[in-house]
């Protein structure tokens, strides 16, 4: 039931979005560790995926408005990201961008309420090149996908989308705003139990004056000019210059206090706090736990040795993520067969993998929007700053129905393609079954589901192995497999 071999398939499901027919040649002769290096050092592969948007042999993008403008229209941006995940030559880059999107969960809806649709989309998805203004948050995540976490955290603290999302744009010494100060500790670094309420007040003061400024042509509530933008600004006169003391050390000498500083130098407060938080041992452990759940297993609790080792790599390598991922993906916990299919697919992972396995002939990615929403994961719209409810939290009767609805939609759209591409291997119902399982890869099927599927195929009656009968049964089989419980595991 494997496409290449079970270990490579496992690696590509976790560090990418599964194996498409196009990948098979690339990975066929690689060892697992070679494949890890290929994925992690993705800079060797061209970043050409956006240039392939519009090709007829790729999935199709368009919106109901017949406009594809992913820098300024959120539905286009959603399709561009799905397209990237399906067709990228750098799967781990997109996978990590998705990981950071959940980690720094920022929702379009609040940005729209603040700044309008065009600016909100730009803040999240603007790719530098055509329009003016800073790159969007997702481009930041792609840039730092396997980069340095401390640097990423600092960029996030200055990111316009984050400054709107957690209200940093209004943070001033007259009225300190606690939202970012709290979440940077609770969710982005050390986690609850490792900071105090007093730390929240101090962190709010640290980031006073970390605000936004509009370009000369920017006007709030007037977003007609797509070239206008907002960008990070440090406002010295709004910064609280007093000393700030924390319950944990800020400096290498053990000091817990950020010293009093003049307004002009006050931006250093935030840099010091972010550096301290990024290098905090609990941040290392918290990220290690998240990587365990994202890459290794949601069934087994994190192995303490794994957490200690991954956290040590992170700290020793100055908060670089790439060596941590190399450790994770080569580790015995990851490669052990018990880790295979030990995670619940995120809806986006599920949809992208299914498309890559079943097919994308004339598939309109705009049609994935409401299925994904019904499954509980609309890109750029996490439910709250804590991100999506992962693991078993994805799975309920309602979301399972949504997943089976998607499976039916996909199978229906690929009906002729499935029939045509499987015809050479469909001389008998059993042959069709085997051929389908070479490309559509649920977790191993027990006897009961396998027999139910065979019963469904035999119900076709006299088998002629082609035509409408094959289209019907192949699409029905694809629907049942992609909608099966086994396929929800990754």
């Amino acid at each position, binding site marked *: 039931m494997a496409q290449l071999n079970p270990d490579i398939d496992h690696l590509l499901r976790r560090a990418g979005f599964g194996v498409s027919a196009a990948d098979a040649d690339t990975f066929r002769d690689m060892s697992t560790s070679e494949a890890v290096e290929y994925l992690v050092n993705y800079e060797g592969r061209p970043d050409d995926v956006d240039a392939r948007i519009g090709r007829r042999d790729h999935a199709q993008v368009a919106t109901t408005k017949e406009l594809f403008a992913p820098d300024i229209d959120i539905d286009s941006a959603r399709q561009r990201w799905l397209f990237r995940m399906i067709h990228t030559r750098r799967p781990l880059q997109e996978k990590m961008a998705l990981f950071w999107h959940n980690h720094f969960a920022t929702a379009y809806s609040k940005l729209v309420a603040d700044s309008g649709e065009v600016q909100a989309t730009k803040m999240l998805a603007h790719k530098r090149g055509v329009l003016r203004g800073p790159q969007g948050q997702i481009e930041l995540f792609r840039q730092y996908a396997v980069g340095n976490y401390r640097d990423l955290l600092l960029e996030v603290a200055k990111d316009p989308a984050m400054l709107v999302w957690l*209200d940093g744009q*209004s943070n001033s010494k007259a009225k300190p*705003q606690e939202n970012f100060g709290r979440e940077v500790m609770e969710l982005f670094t050390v986690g609850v139990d490792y900071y105090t309420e007093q730390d929240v007040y101090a962190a709010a003061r640290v980031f006073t004056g970390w605000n936004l400024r509009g370009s000369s042509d920017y006007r709030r509530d007037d977003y007609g000019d797509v070239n206008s933008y907002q960008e990070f600004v440090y406002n010295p006169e709004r910064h609280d210059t007093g000393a700030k003391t924390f319950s944990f050390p800020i400096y290498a000498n053990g000091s817990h206090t950020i010293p009093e500083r003049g307004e002009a130098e006050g931006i250093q407060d935030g840099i010091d706090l972010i550096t301290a938080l990024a290098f905090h041992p609990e941040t290392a452990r918290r990220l290690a736990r998240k990587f365990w759940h994202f890459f290794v297993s949601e069934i087994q609790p994190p192995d303490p040795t794994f957490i200690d080792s991954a956290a040590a790599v992170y700290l020793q390598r100055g908060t670089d993520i790439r060596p941590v991922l190399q450790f994770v993906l080569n580790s015995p916990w990851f490669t052990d067969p018990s880790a295979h299919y030990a995670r619940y697919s995120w809806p986006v992972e599920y949809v992208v993998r299914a498309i890559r396995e079943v097919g994308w002939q004339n598939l309109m990615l705009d049609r994935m929007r409401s299925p994904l929403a019904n499954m509980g994961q609309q890109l750029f719209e996490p439910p*709250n700053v804590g991100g999506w409810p992962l693991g078993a939290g994805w799975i*309920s009767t309602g979301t399972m129905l949504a997943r089976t609805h998607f499976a039916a939609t996909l199978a*229906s759209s690929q009906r002729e393609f499935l029939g045509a591409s499987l015809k050479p291997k469909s001389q008998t119902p059993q042959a069709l079954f085997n051929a389908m399982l070479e490309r559509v890869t649920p977790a191993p099927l027990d006897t009961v*589901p396998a027999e139910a599927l065979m019963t469904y195929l035999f*119900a076709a009656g006299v088998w002629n192995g082609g035509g409408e009968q094959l289209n019907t049964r192949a699409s029905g089989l694809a629907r049942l497999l992609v909608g*099966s419980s086994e396929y929800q595991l990754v």
Partner: protein
Amino acid sequence: MAISRRLFIRHGVATVTLGIAAPSFLSAIAHAQGNPSRRLVVVYLGGGNDALNTLVSYRDPAYYSRRPSIAVPAGQVLQVGTDAAGQALGLHPRLGGLANIFNEGRLALVQRTGYQNSSRSHFEATDIYGTANPQSTTGSGWLGRYLDTLPRPLDSLAAWNTTGETPRALLSGTSGVPAIPNANTYTFASPNRGAVALQERVAAQTMASSPAPGRPHLALVNSCNLGALETLDRVAQATAYTPTIAYPNNGFGLALRTVAGAIARGIGSRVFWLSTGGYDTHAGQGGGGGGGYANLMGTLGDGLWAFYSDIRNQGLASDTTVIVFSEFGRRISENGSAGTDHGAGGLMMALGGSVRGGLYGTAASLAPGHPTLENNSGDVRHETDFRSVYASLLDQWFGVNSVPILGGDFRAGSPAIF
């Protein structure tokens, strides 16, 4: 008494619990068990509702001085009288529907609900309201443990969750709750039609029935897959429902309409779970009774009024109680973005045809230094433990013993809302 006695014995506290059970408590059980059709509709306001702007102390000068740009003007509140502490109170002007229910004597406002050392984290606080244990944010929820007391086999629609994910409150070791975020698409889908589609449904049902030995995580997915397939036809009955009144055309209104349909069609669900979000109002709450917070109040009040009116028109109100809660209240003083940060004590509301309406508990006095405040007078100190409201719902409404479900006796402080 059968259910309660089994629980007492299972938890090994039979003598103690029976020993302190007052006669009124026993009669409450008998009374409730005479009405097995009683149902509870839980509404969660996601993000931490700003209780001080829901129920306004409009004669407290500190309310206005500490909230210069977001206070609700005294002239706009919908007055609901004076509480036991002498605070004059009024509902937000967009809660006209709730004011109607209050005036009918069917809305209970339980002020300053919460617990000691209230968590200011959304996730921790939401989990605590779910587990009903401030010391634990993991494990089963209070409603899940209630469902566990119901006779087996448990009807797969004993509880009905209108959101896509299962809230901790409904988590249970033994009672799965279907999530039905959109009842209209709660149907079987196939790329084919007719007999072939039917064969697919049979295959899907057989596959999901597999016990998946040795793979509990797969069994969990199977149970959801199967739970969906088994409930499709009954959920369809609830959607084929014509209400007696128009519901607001928003997600919350439509979810309430589906719940009313399930009640009117006699599906038999005991617990319904709804959620409406946007309450994390750090910025732009709006002043003068308008703006972002007013929109939230409009969605809440208009939806609940439509629901209450609809089920009352159908003669089903006396068997239906709605409880409204949020994970915490918000800071008393507004912040620099015309919003409020995470605070402590909140407001719980109960409404329904059997609810004894009125003001319960006392409002905080918002001038700094007052003992009804905490956290250097930044936040409202809780007065009524949220678990004693749960105890009212369990003991007095459902007629089960709240003590084992809540892991402690919270009946003493329970507001007498029934």
